[in-house]
């Protein structure tokens, strides 16, 4: 499982992940908005189960992109070392 995730983080296309996240997000928002106007059992249950499930998946994909970016970033220590001087040589 960890190896699969590692592989995904190394090879996944951020643009594709975001497109998937946006499409899923739009579907989730449609389902959730439907229940605001029609409060029968089908819209309410769709919104609170499938809608929120798809919405969560969409957000997780976005977080995956953030993690991919963070893994590629180079972080400097908060206090950079002093530059070497002639005396050090």
């Amino acid at each position, binding site marked *: 499982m960890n190896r699969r995730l590692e592989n995904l983080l190394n090879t996944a296309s*951020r*643009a594709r992940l*975001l*497109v998937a*996240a*946006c*499409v899923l*997000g*739009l579907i*989730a*928002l449609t389902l*959730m*908005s439907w*229940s*605001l*106007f*029609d*409060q*029968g*059992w*089908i819209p*309410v*249950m769709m*919104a*609170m189960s499938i*809608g*929120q499930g798809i*919405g969560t998946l*969409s*957000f997780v*994909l*976005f977080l995956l*992109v*953030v993690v991919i*970016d963070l893994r590629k970033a180079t972080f400097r220590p908060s206090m950079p070392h002093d530059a070497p001087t002639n005396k050090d040589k």
Partner: protein
Amino acid sequence: MHVSPLSWIALACAVVAAVIMLLYLVYRPPLDTKTKGFLALGLGVLPIMTALIGNVEGLRATESQAFCGSCHTMDLHIADANDPDSMGLAAIHSRTKMFGDRSCYVCHKDYGMYGYALTKLGGMGHVYYFLTDYAWEDVHDSVPRIHIARPFRNDNCMQCHSTSGRLWNEVADHQGLLEDLRAGQTSCASAGCHGYAHPFSKAAEEEGI
């Protein structure tokens, strides 16, 4: 259709989030900090707001009579509860403001510590039975088969009728059965006492059997 102010806020969040997502899908801007900031709003903050408000509104909706009546199986029960000429317990109580358009929930909810969650779990049971059995059946065929999951608890009646008032205790039957009523041994909503909550359904049940 009544849409609450809270729902309008949820809808506004959903619209802004959808616009952000659509703009990303159409223009595909470079993934810099600014783009990711907008996407965090469009894919995270705003949909979460919509979902949270949707939960509040959705759970509130589940307490309404209209929600219970959104399954055709409940059509006759709702019609009876709202019938101004009916003298069934459900109808009498539905005519009071405290029950009103929430009468199904006020009577049938579980008043225990975990009552809200248990009531919702019970509701999921109703969905299960509806989808696996009643959905394809005419309401008139269903009525004889519909029955309450467990006997109606006097505790629910006693949320309002405390059994300790003077007027209540002046009724001879109440006096004689006081302990039984409080212990739930004799049901308030039974044929010999105040009658069934939905009398029409009992007649149908007897005919069906």
